[in-house]
């Protein structure tokens, strides 16, 4: 670190001119992607409302346009009380899973880190299963799933991280091994709890496979604050994630409080993941696919990867949900099946590329 000063200047400076051009293009692309995905999500579905009719209905809510909606009460209810909250939840969950995945990858300097490989999802699954199986909080009208999921997720990531770093060695391999170990153990516990309670097997099962079917805007409003806080913390730290990328010692020598940043980012990513997972179930691979697709397209700086993952993750999950609720209409597929079906092959490609490029 002979030229620590130079490195610091390079990393912490704001290369505004260079970045702004890229950012503007990508901001526009990301914005268009999210809007198009959301509009497709609203316009299409198992019930054919007619794309043009949906457009008229949406425009009829814009003042001074004078557009008349042709919707019946039933169609209105389908669009605004069933389909729109589902699209909104998809946006939130997708944004959260993708940005949390990107953050885990940055903070652990590990291209394969995501809520699933680190044990966060398995821990959240255990917490939520315990709540569902024992019907906790239901009598008091409380939904304890987010809280239990968060506790379980923190437990999972915490054990995985402590285990991984205590073994030491090549961090990529050991952290992933630790994460897989913890995830297997927590999944075993979760399966045990689930099997002990045959009455709720179905509910747990459908939750595990992922779902965005909402009970209306209430779900969206409950998830929103978690996602907003979590995403804000992650975005705030995106520059520091770039600094962490050069290594703990180097980052510390540049004045970055490594331990605190890591804890804060992990806590924020885990909180957001847990809240999303508590409502949407285990939707795999979004945290891997989206950040890596963004890296392949736009570059590896977290100043780009984080906000773009957030946006593309939101749009991506809405599109995946569109597939899950239309491909076998009027039935639906669990969304986790759709994301895994598309995600697994992509993950294989990522594995091949990172093997040659290095973490």
């Amino acid at each position, binding site marked *: 670190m002979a030229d620590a000063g130079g490195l610091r200047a390079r990393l912490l400076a704001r290369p505004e001119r260079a970045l702004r051009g890229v950012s503007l293009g990508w901001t526009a692309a990301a914005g268009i992607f999210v809007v198009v995905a959301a509009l497709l999500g609203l316009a299409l579905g198992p019930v054919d409302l007619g794309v043009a009719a949906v457009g008229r209905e949406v425009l009829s809510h814009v003042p001074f346009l004078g557009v008349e909606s042709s919707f019946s009460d039933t169609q209105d209810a389908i669009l605004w009380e069933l389909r729109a909250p589902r699209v909104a939840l998809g946006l939130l969950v997708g944004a959260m899973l993708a940005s949390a995945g990107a953050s885990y990858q940055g903070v652990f300097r590990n291209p394969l880190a995501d809520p699933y490989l680190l044990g966060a999802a398995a821990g959240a699954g255990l917490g939520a299963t315990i709540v569902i199986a024992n019907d906790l909080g239901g009598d008091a009208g409380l939904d304890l799933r987010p809280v239990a999921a968060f506790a379980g997720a923190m437990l999972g990531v915490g054990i995985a991280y402590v285990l991984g770093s205590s073994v030491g060695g090549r961090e990529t391999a050991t952290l992933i091994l630790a994460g897989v170990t913890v995830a297997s153990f927590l999944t075993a516990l979760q399966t045990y709890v689930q099997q002990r309670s045959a009455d709720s097997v179905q509910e747990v099962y459908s939750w595990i496979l992922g779902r965005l079917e909402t009970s209306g805007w209430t779900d969206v409003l409950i998830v929103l604050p978690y996602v907003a806080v979590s995403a804000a913390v992650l975005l705030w730290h995106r520059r520091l994630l770039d600094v962490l990328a050069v290594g703990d010692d180097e980052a510390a020598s540049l004045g970055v409080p490594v331990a605190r940043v890591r804890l804060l980012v992990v806590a924020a990513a885990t909180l957001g993941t847990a809240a999303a997972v508590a409502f949407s179930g285990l939707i795999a691979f979004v945290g891997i696919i989206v950040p890596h697709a963004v890296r392949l397209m736009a570059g590896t700086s977290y100043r780009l990867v984080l906000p773009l993952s957030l946006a593309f993750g939101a749009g991506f999950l809405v599109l995946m949900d569109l597939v899950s609720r239309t491909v076998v209409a009027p039935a639906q597929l*669990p969304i986790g*099946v759709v994301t895994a079906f598309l995600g697994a092959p992509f993950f294989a490609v990522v594995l091949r590329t990172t093997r040659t490029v290095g973490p």
Partner: protein
Amino acid sequence: MLSRSLAAALAVLLAFVLAGCGGDDDTASPPATSSAAVETTPAPAEFPVTVEADNGAVTFDEEPDAIVSLSATATESLFAIGAGDQVIAVDDQSNYPADAPVTDLSGFEPNVEAIASYEPDLVIAAYDPGGLVDGLEKLDIPVLLQDAAPDLDVAYEQIETLGEATGNSEGAETVVESMQIEIEELVASVPGVEGATVYHELGPDFFSATSETFIGSVYELFGLVNIADAATEADAGGYPQLTGEYIVSESPDLIVLADTKCCEQTVATVSGRPGWDQIEAVQHGDIVEADDDIASRWGPRTVVFVELIAESLAGIGRP
């Protein structure tokens, strides 16, 4: 309850495997294996007797008096036909009748050793996961496998088979005959409901049952149109997961909740779901709170379910 959970799990797996294939092979309900049951004269029970079950022909040299039932439906049938005092143990889901000897045996994750420790001379199961039948046959314990019946005829045959195998043919005949008569009368009591639409709910995540299932066949008796049938292509198992917006747009005339115990669904919770106030059944209060267990079994208490449906249909469409 048990079979419903299994069926739902199976349905999810099938949805995964068969997505888009439109396969119509029905793994849950093999062709009726009834020939023996029909041909055998319902005379006083004579042993040895050979009966047909879903695991093939099974021969009994003498009347079994240590029966283990891993099927909640079979438990209800055994007690109804008068074989109750031959039953020594039933699985943890067999909660009816109250005097059934409930144990912690599981029909969902059956443990052959635990079952064998009761030294049964007949085991009845509705599901054969992980070599249950093979394992018991190796121990020379006769097994009758009676899968979920796809319709009432098969359900009747299963009761008759239980009668022959346990030396209670007359009791079984009586039960079947009274079921047939009562159901026929109940269906006839609500004329003119043909074509009304029904949504049968297995869970608040909108798992439903098509006409290929036993419960679906009950709705067919009344001439009802099952809105889940549109998803038959997508789900050969008969238990598709519908979407909320499809249910609202179909606006069924009758909603039957088979998730009142598992998931605490009520008329109030269903009426309060966003957008559901547009549904005919919700507007007219035609929502039936069924007992999960009765609605998921295919035994003698099917009559109770049919009666519940008939009562609801009698006042359908009126506020």
